[in-house]
C-alpha cells in the first residue's frame, strides 16, 4: 500500500512536469523509471536522487515555457516530493515486518495535514511577499533572494545537526 502511494506521487511529479512542458516527457519518463527502481528496490539514496532529478527537470520545464508565476502547481510538486521521499522511507521501514493497518492511515493523515499547513503557509508567504515587494529595490532582489535561501538552508541544517 505504502509503495503504491509513493508510486502515485512519482506519477504526479511526472504529470506535473509533462503538463508544464510536454517536450520534456521523455525526461520525466526516465525519472519515473528511476523512481520505480527506487521504490521497488527500497533504496533511499536513489529516491533522494530521483527527487533531485525531478527538480532539475521541473526547473528546465519552467525555464523552457517561461510561463507566468503559478504557486499552486509548485506547492503540489513540493508535496509530491515529500510524499515520494517519505513513502520510500516508510517502505524501507515496513520491509518484511508485521504492519498494523494504522501505520498507513497515520502516514496518509499526516500528508493531508501537511498539505493543509503548506497551503496556509503559502497564502501567508504570498501575502507577505506582496507587501514587501514594492519596498525592495530591483537591483538588490537577486542578492536578497540568494542570501535568504542560504540563511534558510543554514538554519535548517543547524536544526538537523542539533537534532542529531
Amino acid at each position, binding site marked *: 500500500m505504502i509503495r503504491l502511494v509513493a508510486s502515485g506521487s512519482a506519477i504526479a511529479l511526472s504529470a506535473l512536469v509533462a503538463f508544464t512542458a510536454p517536450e520534456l516527457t521523455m525526461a520525466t519518463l526516465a525519472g519515473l523509471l528511476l523512481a520505480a527502481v527506487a521504490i521497488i528496490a527500497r533504496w*533511499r539514496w536513489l*529516491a*533522494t536522487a530521483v*527527487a*533531485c532529478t525531478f*527538480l*532539475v527537470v*521541473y*526547473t528546465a520545464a*519552467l*525555464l523552457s515555457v517561461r510561463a507566468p*508565476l*503559478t*504557486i499552486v*502547481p*509548485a*506547492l503540489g*510538486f*513540493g*508535496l509530491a*516530493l*515529500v510524499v515520494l*521521499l*517519505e513513502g520510500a*522511507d*516508510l517502505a524501507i*521501514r*515496513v520491509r*518484511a*515486518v*508485521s*504492519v*498494523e493497518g*494504522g*501505520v498507513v*492511515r*497515520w502516514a496518509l493523515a*499526516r500528508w493531508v495535514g*501537511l*498539505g493543509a*499547513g*503548506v497551503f496556509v*503557509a*503559502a497564502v501567508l*508567504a504570498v501575502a507577505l511577499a506582496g507587501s514587501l515587494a514594492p519596498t525592495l529595490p530591483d537591483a538588490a532582489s*537577486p542578492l536578497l*533572494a*540568494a542570501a535568504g*535561501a542560504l540563511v*534558510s*538552508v543554514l538554519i*535548517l*541544517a543547524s*536544526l*538537523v545537526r*542539533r*537534532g*542529531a
Partner: protein
Amino acid sequence: MTARVTPLALSLLGVAAWAVSLGVLSGRPELLATALPILLLLATLARPASRPDYSIAHEISSDRAFEGGAVTVTVTVEARSPLALIELLGPLPPGSAVRLGNHRAVLTLRAGATARWSYDLHFPGRGLHDLGTIAVRVRDRFGLRVWECRHVDPKPVRVYPRIVPLRHVPRPAHVQASVGDYVSPALGEGIEPGDIRQFSPGDRIKQVNWRASLRLGQLYVTQQHRERNADVVLMLDTLAEVGAPADTTLDLGIRAAASLATAYLARKDRVGLITYGGVMSWVRPRSGPAQYERVADALLRADVVFTYVAKDLLRVPPRVLSPQALVIAITPLLDQRFSKAVLDLAARGFDLVVLVVSPVAVTRVALAPSLAGDLAGRLWALERRSELAALRRHGLPVLEWRPPEPLEAALVAARRPRIRLASAG
C-alpha cells in the same frame, strides 16, 4: 534511550537545499514554493522533542523445547503517550528461524492504547538461547527524529536434543547396590529364581520349594537373584566434528547421549556424563528424572573448543568415573587423542563400549553428490574400517552408527549375555 535525526531528515534537507539553489540560480520563484513543504517539515525539528512514554512486556510460550520444536514470542506494547511509529525488533537468536509471523513489527498507537504481536520461532538445533532483548525504535510524528533503546528482560530457552526411544542398550557388566532392573549374580530378594538350599530358621514359608522338598524329603527354599541398578557414564567426544550445522557428528552424538541417558535412567540406573574436548566437564552419576535435566543441560553447552592439549582422564574424580561403571564413549573418532583416552580406560579395566558416529555418512549427506566425493567417501570409509578394526583388536566392543540409520540398529550389536550365577563364581 538515544535520540537522533533520521536519514529521511537528511534526505529532505538535501532536496530542500537543491530546490532553493535551483530557484535562486534559475530565478524562478516556483522552485522556492516547491521547497516550502520540505522547509515546513524540517522546521518542526525546532520544537523541543518530548520523549515517548511507553512500556513493553514480552513472554514466551515455553522455556524448554526439543530440537525441531517452536516457541511463541508474544510482545505487548502499552503506549502512555502517542506513538506515531514504533518499530520493534524481537529476539531471533542464531540457530533459530521465524516459522510463523515476523520478528519485526511496526505499529502506530494512541495514548493509552495497547498492542500485542506474536511470532513463532523454530529451533532446528539444540542450544541455550536468550529471547530477552527487544530493540525498540520510536519515530516522532514527522518521521524526522527517532529514539532507540533496548528492552531487556532475560528469557532463557533451552532447546534439548531429540530423544529416540531405545529398547536395547548395552548391558553393564557390573551392578551397584541400589535396586534396579538388572538381574544380579548375587542372591537375595528378587523375582528371578536362582538356586535352592536347605530351609533354615528365618526363611519364609512362601519361599519353600515344595517340589524339591517332597522329592528330597527335607524342606528346601528357592533363592532369587537380586535386581540391581548400574552406573553408566557417557563420555562424549567434543574434540572435533564434521557435517552440516544442526546435523554434525557432535549433534548426532549428543542426540545419542541424550537417548541413552533417558533409556538408562528409565531403568533406574545412575547416569553420568563426561564431555571430553578442549574443555572437559562432567556430571556426577545420579538417578532419577532430575538427573536427566542435569545431563541435558550439560549436553546443551557441549561444543567443540579447539585445543592442542590432550586431556588426562585421571583428572576426573573417581566418584564420577567409578571403576564399576559402564563407560559408553560416543565419538566420531576424528581425533587420535580420544582414541588414546579410550584405550587408556580399557587398559585400566573399565567396562567400555565405543559408539562411533560415522563421519563418512554425515559428510556424504552434507556434500553435493559427485564422483570425486563418492570416491573420497569410499576411501575414507576403508581407512576408518581399519581404524575400527584396530580398536576391536584391543578387545573393545565398537559399534558403528551410520546416520540416518536408527541408533537402535547400531546398539543391537552390543547385546551382551546376562551374567549367570555359574559364571559369577
